[in-house]
C-alpha cells in the first residue's frame, strides 16, 4: 500500500485509494460499535455527516486549518453520539435499529430547512483541500486509516473489547457481574463516533465538498455490505474489505451509475441470507479448523476436541 504512489503517479488511482482509506476508517469504526456491542447503528451516516458538516462550517466560515477541524469534527460527532447512546440504554435490537435509522432523515430535513446555513441539496462547497499534493493526501489518509485501525484494534483486544462482546452476548448477565454497562456503551459510541466524524471531515477535505450524499441510504448500504463482506466483529476484515468494495463501487459508478445501489442491495440481501456473520469470518474459521486438524493429525496429544 505505501508504495502505490511510487509505482503509479496516475491521479485517478491516487484519489481512489485516498477515498478507500477513509472508507476503511468508516467500516472499522462502524464495526467496533455494531459488531462488538451488537447495537447495529443504522444512523451511522448521521455521525459521519455531523463530523463532516461541522468541520466544513468551521473551515469555510472561520478558516480553521484542516487538521484542527478534522479533530473538532470528530469531537462534535462524539458528543452528538450521545443522542444515540442515551436511547441505547432503553432500547434493544430492532427498536434501536429503527430509532437510529431516523437520525439521518432528520439531519436531511434540517439541512433543507436551514438552507442558508447548510445549503440543503447543494451541499457545502469551498472547503480547503487537505494539502496541495495528492500524494501527501494519500499518505495522510493512509496514516489516518492505519492509526485508527491500530487504536481500535488495541481497544478491542483490551478489557474494554471483552466487555463490549459481553454486552453483545448477554447484557443482563454482564450487568449482574457488576460491570457498569452504561459507561461501556457510552465508550463504544464515543470511540465509534469520534472516528466516524473525523473520517467524515477528512472526506470533506478530499472532495472539498460535503453534501447530503454523506447521509444517503446508498452510503449506508455500501458500508453495511462492506461490513458483512469483511466479517462482523473482526475489525481488520471490514477495513480490508473497504478497499475491495470501494474499487468495485467506483467501477460500477462508471459502468452503470443508476443501478449501483441496487446491485449493492442485492449483494447485501444475498449475504444476509447466506453468510450473515460475514464472508471473511467463514474463511477465517475454516482456516483455523484446517490448521487445528493439521496439528491433530501430526501431534494429536495436545489437540483439543472441537466442541
Amino acid at each position: 500500500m505505501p508504495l502505490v504512489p511510487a509505482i503509479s503517479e496516475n491521479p485517478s488511482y491516487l484519489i481512489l485509494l485516498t477515498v478507500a482509506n477513509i472508507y476503511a476508517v468508516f467500516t472499522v469504526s462502524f464495526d467496533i460499535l455494531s459488531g462488538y456491542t451488537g447495537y447495529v447503528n443504522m444512523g451511522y451516516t448521521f455521525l459521519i455527516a455531523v463530523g463532516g458538516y461541522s468541520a466544513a462550517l468551521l473551515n469555510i466560515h472561520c478558516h480553521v486549518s484542516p487538521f484542527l477541524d478534522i479533530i473538532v469534527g470528530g469531537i462534535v460527532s462524539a458528543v452528538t453520539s450521545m443522542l444515540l447512546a442515551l436511547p441505547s440504554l432503553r432500547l434493544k435490537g430492532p427498536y434501536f435499529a429503527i430509532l437510529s435509522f431516523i437520525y439521518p432523515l432528520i439531519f436531511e430535513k434540517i439541512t433543507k430547512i436551514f438552507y442558508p446555513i447548510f445549503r440543503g441539496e447543494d451541499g457545502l462547497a469551498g472547503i480547503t483541500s487537505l494539502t496541495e499534493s495528492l500524494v501527501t493526501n494519500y499518505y495522510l489518509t493512509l496514516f489516518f486509516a492505519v492509526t485508527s485501525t491500530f487504536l481500535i484494534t488495541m481497544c478491542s483486544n483490551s478489557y474494554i473489547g471483552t466487555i463490549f462482546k459481553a454486552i453483545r452476548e448477554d447484557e443482563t448477565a454482564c450487568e449482574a457481574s457488576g460491570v457498569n454497562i452504561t459507561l461501556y456503551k457510552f465508550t463504544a459510541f464515543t470511540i465509534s463516533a469520534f472516528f466516524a466524524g473525523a473520517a467524515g471531515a477528512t472526506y470533506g477535505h478530499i472532495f472539498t465538498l460535503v453534501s447530503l450524499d454523506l447521509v444517503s441510504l446508498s452510503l449506508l448500504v455500501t458500508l453495511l455490505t462492506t461490513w458483512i463482506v469483511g466479517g462482523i466483529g473482526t475489525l481488520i476484515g471490514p477495513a480490508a474489505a473497504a478497499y475491495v468494495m470501494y474499487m468495485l463501487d467506483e467501477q460500477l459508478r462508471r459502468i452503470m451509475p443508476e443501478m449501483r445501489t441496487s446491485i449493492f442491495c442485492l449483494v447485501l440481501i444475498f449475504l444476509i441470507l447466506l453468510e450473515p456473520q460475514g464472508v471473511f469470518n467463514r474463511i477465517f474459521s475454516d482456516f483455523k479448523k484446517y490448521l487445528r486438524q493439521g496439528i491433530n493429525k501430526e501431534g494429536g496429544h495436545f489437540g483439543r476436541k472441537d466442541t
Partner: protein
Amino acid sequence: MILELLIYGFTMGSVYAISALGLSLIYGVARVPNMAYGAFYTLSAYIAFILLNEFSLDFSLCILLSLFVTVAIAIASEKLLIKHILANPNSVIIATISLALFFEGFIQKYQKDSGYSYAYLPSITESVDILGIYISIQRVLIIVVFLVLAVGLHFLMAKTKVGMAIRAVAQNPEEAVAVGISKEKILTIAMGLSAAMAGITGILFGGMQAMSPYMGWPLLIKSLTIVTLGGLGSISGTIMASLILAYTEQVVASLSIGLISLSQFSELVSLILLIVILLFKPTGLLGKTAKEEEIPH
C-alpha cells in the same frame, strides 16, 4: 376555514390510516417492521403509471394489475427472503431496507429514462359542495375507501378464521402453532394483505401529489410512528393515531413564529414523534395494556 382544515386533515388521516393499518398487520405477525413497506407503496403507484402510459390500458384495469403485481412481489420477497431471516430482527431490518432501495433503483432509472419529471396518476378533480366547502371527489373517495377498508379489516379480524389466526400468531406465536395454525401461511397472508393496503394507498395518493421514487420513505416513517403511537394490533388505536398525526402536521404547517413559517417543520413532526414514543413508551400510548414480552427491555 376551520371546517376546511378539519376535512383536509381527515383526508390525510385516512391516507395515513390505510397505510398504517397495512403496516401493523405485517409488524404484528412478523414482530419486526417491514422497512420495504414504503417501497410497495411506491411500486404500486409507478406500476399503475407505467401500465397507463406505456401500454395505455384502462385505468381500472391498471389499478387491479398493479395491486396484483405489488402483492405478488411482496409475497415473493417474503417467501424468498424475510421468512428465512425472521429469527434475527436486525437482519430483517437491514434486508428490507436494502430491498426497498433495490426497487427504488429501478424506479429511479425508469423515471430518468422516460423523462417524466412530474408523474401523476389520474384523479377525479371535480369538486362537490359539502356544507359550503368545495372538496375534490378524490378526497371524498379516499375517505370512503378508508372507511370501507377499516370496517372490512375489523370484520376480517373479528369474525373470520383467517383474522383470528392472524391475531393468534401476533399475540402468541408458540401457542398459535400448538393449536394447529401454520405460522408460515399466516405470514404470507399478512404480507399479501399489507402489500395490498400499501398499494391502495399508493394509487389513491399518487393522484394527489407528484410521484417520486423516494416517496415511500416518509410514508413508511409516518406509518411506523402511527403504529407505535396507536399500539400494535389495535385498529381503533391506529385510526386515532393517524388522525392525531395528520392534524398535528396540519397545525404545525399553518403555524408561524413572527415572519418565519413553520410549514417545512411539519415533515419533522412524525420523525421526532417516533423518537419520543420509542424512547418513552415503546408499547404505544393508545394501545391496550402491553404484555411483558413486548416491552423491549
